[in-house]
């Protein structure tokens, strides 16, 4: 076999590294005069990367590369494609916002690409070192993005919080990994899985606990969620949009690769830990979201509540459960992408549309944004005919299959609590009259079209959920 084709499954990462280097150079030489150039080139790079991935990155079966540290499989391809798409759309939504705040700089796009590289590495990780590499690459890029608006005190503060807490989580992850490595003698996830069998020693359980804590932190599960509302609220909205979408895919992969695959032998332990986390997450996320007045913060707590559902999929501990969690993740990021997109588009120069009251009477000012937001809110509330309904249904189903009666009841009750604050957003947009004169929302035809497509996808995937459900199940099994 040709030596170059040997690395074909890693084409996405290789391309990203090249693109990042080239873009950094272009930014240096193009400078201030051609601000939009990097943005356009980034989108081109993403499109090319996705095309390369589809053309050369496909694998027929699980393939190990780079001495077994890198795993290429169908799941990886699907997750990476989704991440490419999410990053591209997120950057598209953000463009005008960045210009209005004078933070339209090349580094922003380069950081987004390095974060994406981190996501890709994490998705394909087959060794503890690769996992850690991916986690850190992603996290460090995102810390910098949160602080990107350097004149904003709030952004700097939330970046600091994020960084300090994130560093603790990374430390926890490393510590857990070191224990597992010490007790199994391997960094390779496959070997670890082969060597860990019940009965487990106390050391393994201790290491596992640290790893679960780190995963919970990254996902934003209670009680390791403290960073999430502050970061969501404090970061520039375009960055919140970024954090709320593609990295969720990566953290799903983190949980899957580490817990479900690498530490499969300790499933009995970590499903119990996750069950406790899920209960707390569902309750705290939904109840605290009820009293928020800032939409970004409310969506942050809604994220926490949704993470609770994703964790429930893992609690089931079956391939079906992971497929349900994957489907839920897709449904969630699609909605998250749209709802933060609405916040971006509803704003204007010097006006951040992040208070709930800013949405009063949005329907009469901007019917398209209001309609899109309504679709997205009903979807997260879990009302058919939108995709969010099927995501919840799938989670309920796997919980029944694994006989978790009380988790079903709790999750059902919490979806009703959650429905209230989603309905409140719709109430503000549709039932209330607009107050005062607000700056007109941004009118960017292309971006608005993308948002319309985003909302339409939420509806279309809700009417015909079959193909995506099948895809999720196929790549997991």
């Amino acid at each position, binding site marked *: 076999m040709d030596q170059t084709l040997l690395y074909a499954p890693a084409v996405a990462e290789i391309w990203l590294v090249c693109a990042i280097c080239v873009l950094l150079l272009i930014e240096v030489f193009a400078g201030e005069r051609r601000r939009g150039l990097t943005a356009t080139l980034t989108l081109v790079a993403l499109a090319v990367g996705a095309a390369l991935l589809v053309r050369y990155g496909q694998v027929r079966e699980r393939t190990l590369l780079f001495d077994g540290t890198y795993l290429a499989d169908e799941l990886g391809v699907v997750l990476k494609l989704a991440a490419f798409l999410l990053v591209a759309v997120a950057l598209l939504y953000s463009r005008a916002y960045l210009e209005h705040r004078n933070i339209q700089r090349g580094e922003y796009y380069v950081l987004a690409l390095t974060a994406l590289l981190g996501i890709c590495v994490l998705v394909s990780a087959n060794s503890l070192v690769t996992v850690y590499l991916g986690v850190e690459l992603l996290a460090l890029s995102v810390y910098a993005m949160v602080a990107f608006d350097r004149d904003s005190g709030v952004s700097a503060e939330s970046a600091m919080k994020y960084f300090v807490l994130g560093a603790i989580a990374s430390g926890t992850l490393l510590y857990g990994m070191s224990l597992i490595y010490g007790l199994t003698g391997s960094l390779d996830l496959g070997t670890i899985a082969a060597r860990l069998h019940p009965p487990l020693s106390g050391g393994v359980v201790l290491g596992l606990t640290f790893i679960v804590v780190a995963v919970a932190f990254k996902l934003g599960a209670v009680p390791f969620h403290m960073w999430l509302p502050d970061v969501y609220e404090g970061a520039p909205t375009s960055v919140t949009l970024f954090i709320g979408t593609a990295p969720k895919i990566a953290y799903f992969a983190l949980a899957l690769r580490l817990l479900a695959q690498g530490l499969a032998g300790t499933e009995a332990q970590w499903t119990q830990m996750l069950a406790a986390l899920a209960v707390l997450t569902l309750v705290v996320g939904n109840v605290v979201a009820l009293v928020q007045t800032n939409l970004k913060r409310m969506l942050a707590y809604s994220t926490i509540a949704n993470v609770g559902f994703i964790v429930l999929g893992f609690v089931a501990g079956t391939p079906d459960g992971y497929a349900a969690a994957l489907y839920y993740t897709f449904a969630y990021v699609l909605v998250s992408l749209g709802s933060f997109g609405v916040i971006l588009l509803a704003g204007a120069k010097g006006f951040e549309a992040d208070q709930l009251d800013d949405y009063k009477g949005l329907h009469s000012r901007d019917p398209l944004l209001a309609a899109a937001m309504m679709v997205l809110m009903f979807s997260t509330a879990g*009302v058919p005919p939108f995709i969010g*309904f099927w995501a919840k249904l799938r989670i*309920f189903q796997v919980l*029944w299959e694994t006989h978790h009666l009380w988790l079903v009841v709790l999750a059902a*009750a919490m979806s009703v609590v959650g*429905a*209230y604050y989603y*309905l409140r957003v719709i109430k503000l947009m549709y*039932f209330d009259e607009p107050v005062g004169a607000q700056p007109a929302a941004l009118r960017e035809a292309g971006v608005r079209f993308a948002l319309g497509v985003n909302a339409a996808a939420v509806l279309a995937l809700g009417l015909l959920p*079959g193909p995506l459900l099948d895809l999720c199940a196929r790549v997991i099994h």
Partner: protein
Amino acid sequence: MHALLSWLIWLPIGAGILVLALGDRNIVIGRWLALAASLATLGLAVPLWAHFDTTTPLLQYPQHLPWIPRFQAFYALGVDGISMPLIVLTAFMTVPVVIAAWRVIATRVAQYYAAFLIMEGLMIGVFAASDALLFYFFWEAMLIPMFLIIGIWGGPRRVYATIKFFLYTFLGSVFMLAALIYMYVKAGSYSIASFQALPLSLSEQRWIFAAFMLAFAVKVPMWPVHTWLPDAHVEAPTGGSVILAAIMLKMGGYGFLRFSLPITPDASRELDLLVIALSLIAVIYIGYVALVQQDMKKLIAYSSISHMGFVTLGAFVMYEIVRSTGSLQGAGMGVDGAMVQMVSHGLVSGALFLCVGVLYDRLHSRQIADYGGVVNTMPMFAAFMVLFALANCGLPGTSGFVGEFLVIIASFRASFWYSALAAVTLILGAAYTLWLVKRVVFGPVLSPRVAALEDLNGRELIVLGALAVAVLVIGVWPAPLLKVMQPTVHHLLSQAVATKL
């Protein structure tokens, strides 16, 4: 493969989307389009009834298409004698709603029509679905247009009312969903028939029955989970109240007949007294509550709850009949009565809400005290109002009589006391309805605003006239309706008294 039911579902939805796309600028076209679509849907309902085979309890006009292969969920439609009349009722009641809104709705008109048309399709979908997942899909999706209708075009406290409405129904529904998924996991399919055939232990049945009860009791609504209804009715625009009373409440009754009785027969037998007790409380206590209302819409709303008590009583009294007489003789009458009561109440309560709407459009008040002597200025209106009021008290010759009479006879077989208590409604219903009529319609003209009232215009006359004809036809000649239901009711009885243990 019949596509008739699909047409009934998707024609109004498609028309609704079209009206929405036309927007308020083309509202003249939009309005006629909405009327045409609702009439076309009603037109499609005619062959549905005409070609209905009244000799078999099997599902008719079946359509079976793959939908979600992974869940063994199908786009499966089909109607029997229980669902078919309710579909016809839905198609029938949407037309007056569209006509009644002709000049009355002034803001966001296109959205108003679109919401009602889309809701019509979704409601027909609920009755037509023979796959539980599809049923739930329509059942929940229906909440969205109703939520918007009350919230956008409602009265002063509309936000409170609509959120209460949504959360109450949503709470009931999610537990039903949990129960449906549980049965899916056991049966491996979402078809309602497979649920009905699924063997379930008594404790499973109890839990499932409780989940269904939560969903359907909220929808009916039964005491004590009825409190959302008066709020929703009072705040909803006229069309919203009509659809809410005429169709949405029927979904609870339909759910009991389609899901609770055949799927959990043993739990139903065990817990029938609970349902009967709650029904009788609704009939009597809510009847008293209706008596003291000052607001016309609230009064009719409470009267709806009281009348819907007959539906649940009629559905569950069969177990008491078997228990006390040892035979199924006459048990069918209870279910027959429940069904006729649902259809009749759909027409009568819808008509009464339209009457209130007629008055409200002129005086912008729903308070009984603001009226009096309306007959002097609006004689034609008064005639209709009195007719519908009499139907509401169950006067022989009107549709209201047939359902209540059948249920009372059936409960007499079970126990004298059930029928005695149920019959209290004949007094209470007459009291609150006729007192309402006396205070609003008759008496001297007290207020100058009433003296300035104009009688019905052509539009209102057509709407109320059509409803009056329907009420009288079913009252005088209910046989066709009973005949359509008969095989299905028989089949339902055999399912409901059989044991799954």
